[in-house]
């Protein structure tokens, strides 16, 4: 869509856009260029200019079993978390969209967890789902060690995924509700006249019409799961990647490697892989999933 009535000036738009472009240049493009540069070079241990080492940094990452572990953890985190968050949001949106008395109240409440920062939520959940106190303690009293995120990697991973789901369900809910409200009422009425009950209508009319929104949410949520600020924040505040690397997601490993291990080149190579992964991923989703999505 192009505007017809535009102002003619070559320098004014430059002046208007300059502040943001400068910021982006300094804090986005320069760092991205540096990531690429560092990924293919290595700084000698006793100073001097960085040497070009080709793909050595990538080979180092690929030959490290802990790296593959972090890829696995990220994959689980970024599929299980979004799937649950979207499903919960979908069920709640369909329920609220029936507009029974009082549903406005629930709609108001469901978005609230989204206001909470991942680490702050993490701190609270460390208490709520702690093995010794809070809600899980009763369970542990009956069956000792059935839930212990401090000891078992799988439990810790479940804990950080639960926090992710808690925070993002309200977000998916908002988008799906907005999507449902744009479905013409007449469609539901016609289906009801044909004898379809509320459940049938939800599955055969509403969900297919929500396909674009569901698709959009899947892409955003999975990206969020792989590289989102909350993914890092939750893991860092709750488990610090442990126990025994059980919750070490890819972003956590990159930051850890760079600032604790001071291995900038290794961290940059891992950043590049992550960036590539996200791009392939978005591409596959657009290419293959979109074909089966009904627009309009």
């Amino acid at each position, binding site marked *: 869509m192009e505007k017809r009535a535009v102002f003619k000036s070559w320098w004014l738009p430059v002046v208007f856009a300059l502040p943001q472009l400068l910021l982006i240049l300094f*804090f986005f493009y*320069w760092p991205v260029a540096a990531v690429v540069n560092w990924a293919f070079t290595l700084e000698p241990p006793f100073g001097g200019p960085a040497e070009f080492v080709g793909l050595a940094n990538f080979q180092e990452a690929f030959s490290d079993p802990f790296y593959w572990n972090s890829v696995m953890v990220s994959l689980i985190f970024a599929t299980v978390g979004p799937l649950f968050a979207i499903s919960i949001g979908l069920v709640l949106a369909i329920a609220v969209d029936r507009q029974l008395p009082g549903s406005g109240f629930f709609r108001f409440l469901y978005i609230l*967890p989204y*206001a909470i*920062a991942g680490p702050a939520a993490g701190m609270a959940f460390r208490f709520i789902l702690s093995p010794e106190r809070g809600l899980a303690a009763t369970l542990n009293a009956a069956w000792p060690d059935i839930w212990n995120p401090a000891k078992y990697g799988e439990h810790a991973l479940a804990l950080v995924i639960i926090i992710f789901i808690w925070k993002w369900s309200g977000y998916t809910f908002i*988008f799906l509700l907005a999507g449902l409200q744009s479905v013409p009422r007449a469609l539901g009425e016609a289906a009801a006249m044909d004898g379809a009950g509320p459940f049938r209508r939800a599955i055969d009319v509403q969900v297919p019409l929500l396909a674009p929104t569901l698709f959009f949410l899947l892409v955003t949520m999975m990206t969020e799961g792989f590289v989102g600020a909350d993914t890092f924040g939750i893991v860092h505040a709750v488990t610090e990647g442990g126990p025994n690397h059980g919750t070490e997601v890819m972003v956590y490993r990159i930051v850890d490697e760079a600032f604790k291990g001071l291995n900038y080149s290794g961290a940059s190579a891992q950043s590049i892989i992550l*960036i590539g992964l996200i791009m392939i991923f978005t591409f596959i989703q657009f290419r293959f999933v979109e074909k089966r999505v009904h627009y309009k």
Partner: protein
Amino acid sequence: MIQRTPIADAVTYAIMVLGFILLIGPFLVIIAGASQTMQQVNAIPFSFLPENQFLANATQAWQRADLGTAMTNSLIMAVLVTAGKVALSSLTAFAIVFFRSPLKHLFFWSVFITLMLPLEVRVVPTYAVAADLLQPVKFILSLFGGIQIGVDWNLLNSYTGLTLPLIATATGTFLYRQFFMTLPDELAEAARMDGSGPVRFFFDMLLPLSRTNMLALTTIMFVYGWNQYLWPLLMVTDPSYKTVMMSLRSLLPADNGTPDWNVTLAGSLLIMLPPLVVVGVLQRWFVRGLVATDK
């Protein structure tokens, strides 16, 4: 409601109540725990009833984590990020939408690409730039003629360093661009016929018209700024610049110390409160901003 179906209605309410327990339940646990004594909060099974110890716990948390300083810093950071974002993104969107210029597509795409790579994957070199802001300038100078400058401009431990890299993303620009595109072409035409230049048009017509967008953007950017975690963690070493997300850690009971989780929960509740109030009170604007920026 399309038809009268008592069973479906009952199921709907059951689902909504279940959603309430899942999503709001944790808040109730936090509120109950934050107002109990240490003995009560560690009791098994946990009691969901709030007691009267909240003020005492909150005072203790406030002192332990130095929340006065942290809250002030977070507030300053959130306000600066919000103001910077609202101002800069409206300017850029104006330049992209309302000018016929060959650079327009270059501007658009160079801003658009920033959406793809969040701070987390480029945090190491971004930190390096913040530690020495003139690094890119030095590099360019050394390419053209080998001039060396010895000045370092360090942004670590400053509000500038805390906020500038967070403003350098595209979210707000798209919100404004989307809105500017919906305005009829006749608006700019009429303004031009009446003798208004682009600057006057921007300040006297566009800005007043985009008040709703500004409010929506303000709410989401405030929450975004307040909830920043990784960046302050790296940038700040001086305790007088620490933010609330950094002070969370000092709220935790020590591993072998007294398990005073009531204090931890009271402190976390205080930290959660500002964004919670924004999303609760200004929910209409928040939701609007959310739905509009992400599409």
